[in-house]
């Protein structure tokens, strides 16, 4: 199984059910599909149903809510935090089809995959400190060699040569060792860290001593206790999250006020500059060009011609309501009938018209039944198809 950063794609998916967070998936009903290419890749479906999750390897990804495609290395890297997800997405290494908001939400549904913690203490690390831990005052008159035969993965052979109140470490086993410790690497680390009792280890045959037992008994005195290196703790960085919400009152003034009165009566009013004849909608107190009072209100539209259609594929939550509009939706800029050529009117397009509406098409407003003098008095504009 191909591994990237010591982790395989299978590792990520096999631990997904265990990493599921019920509190992060409340109200979510979605099928997340993954198409991972390259060595160790494959196809997976992750079905999230409110408080349960099912992860399955499959050949058929149909019926997904969102599909993420990536190469195996990128996928693993992003999942274990070695590759920046946004960066990978933006540069095209990750592709997402369907409901993109679910990808962000999935970060809350699963805890991050964490690498199985490797012991910070290694056999090599223990021997690296052996000479420094030598206690000459407890080794007066000794002239011996102590052998270590550490077996298994990450093991090795060493000989501590003690003579004239000094200690030297050699790799390999000398023939003339007074005693040789034979033990598996993992057990040796546990012995040194005090997690495994030497008598128990000997009783179970996991620690074998070949040679002079008396010398073996002296060893804890000859060498000071091994202190494992302290893991540097990552500092906790405090962040507070807040939401400022202030109730506001906005004055319409008489010009915008008249415009709103018009909307209640299903009329769109523009104001006209007495100097240049320019019309503005929604109306503003003064002409933007001549800077003179433009109080004359003239009814325009309500139908008009689309001059620009903006199809929104990515919508961020409206901070005023917290709601996110469903995408895609379209905003249209409309040249209302009778407005002249100076200003377009900005509103939404009926979703059903999205597929086949283009610049130059004719539209009319769809009025709300409850008109109170607001932008929402017009629900949206719809295409005139007759």
């Amino acid at each position, binding site marked *: 199984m191909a591994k990237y950063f010591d982790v395989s794609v299978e590792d990520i998916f096999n631990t997904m059910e265990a990493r599921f967070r019920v509190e992060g998936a409340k109200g979510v009903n979605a099928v997340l599909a993954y198409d991972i290419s390259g060595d160790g890749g494959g196809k997976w479906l992750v079905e999230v149903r409110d408080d349960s999750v099912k992860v399955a390897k499959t050949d058929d990804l149909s019926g997904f809510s969102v599909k993420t495609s990536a190469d195996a290395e990128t996928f693993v890297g992003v999942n274990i935090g070695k590759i920046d997800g946004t960066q990978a997405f933006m540069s095209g290494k990750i592709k997402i089809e369907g409901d993109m908001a679910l990808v962000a939400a999935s970060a809350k549904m699963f805890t991050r995959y964490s690498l199985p913690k490797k012991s910070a203490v290694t056999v090599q690390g223990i021997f690296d400190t052996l000479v420094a831990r030598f206690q000459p005052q407890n080794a007066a008159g000794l002239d011996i060699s102590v052998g270590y035969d550490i077996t298994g993965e990450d093991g090795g052979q060493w000989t501590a040569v003690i003579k004239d109140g000094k200690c030297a470490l050699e790799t390999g086993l000398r023939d003339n060792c007074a005693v040789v410790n034979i033990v598996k690497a993992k057990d040796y680390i546990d012995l040194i860290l005090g997690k495994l009792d030497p008598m128990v280890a000997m009783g179970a045959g996991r620690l074998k001593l070949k040679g002079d037992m008396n010398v073996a008994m002296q060893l804890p005195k000859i060498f000071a206790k091994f202190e494992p290196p302290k893991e540097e703790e990552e*500092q*906790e*960085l*405090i*962040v*507070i*999250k*807040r*939401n*400022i*919400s*202030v*109730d*506001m*009152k*906005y*004055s*319409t*003034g*008489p*010009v915008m*006020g*008249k415009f*709103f*009165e018009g909307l209640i009566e299903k009329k769109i009013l523009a104001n006209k500059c007495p100097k240049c004849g320019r019309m503005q909608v929604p109306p503003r107190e003064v002409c933007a060009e001549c800077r003179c009072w433009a109080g004359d209100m003239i009814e325009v539209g309500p139908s008009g011609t689309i001059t620009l259609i903006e199809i929104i594929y990515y919508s961020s939550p409206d*901070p*005023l*309501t*917290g709601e996110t509009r469903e995408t895609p939706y379209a905003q249209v800029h409309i040249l209302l009938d009778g407005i002249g050529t100076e200003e377009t009117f900005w509103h939404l397009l009926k979703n059903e018209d999205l597929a086949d509406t283009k610049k130059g098409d004719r539209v009319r407003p769809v009025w709300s039944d409850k008109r109170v*003098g*607001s932008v929402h008095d017009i629900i949206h504009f719809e295409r005139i198809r007759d």
Partner: protein
Amino acid sequence: MTEENKHCYIKEGKLALPYQYFAGRVGSKFLVSLRDKKKILGVKCEKCGKVFIPPRKTCERCFEDISEKWVELSNEGEVTNFTVVRTDDKHHPRKAPYVLAMIKLGGADTPIAHILGGVDPDSVKTGMKVKAVFADKAVNTMLQIDRFEPVN
């Protein structure tokens, strides 16, 4: 209604914005110490000798980096100034009436503003000895000290 404001209306609206604030390394150490050890830390500028609380990375007068110069302050101090808040507002941390006091902790040169509780507002005096009462749960703001109260 006059002719001029006949067409004027007031529309209700809202300004609502989510935000987050990062305390940074210096601020985080201060807040974590309040929360986990119930100890109040300041930083000392060795150039001007001033001990600041809340701690900051730079002495604003000497422009020296003092972010590593931690000193532990006393959890007790004295009121250097105070006011009694007598109106209610949804943004206030307590119901009125309550006391907001400037408190200079033992070992600090700058006072901090905090809530003074457990006392009749009318009996608060400048110079009064007070001690910090820590919040029971994680707050991660200055209100990790829930309030100050008079000593005895």
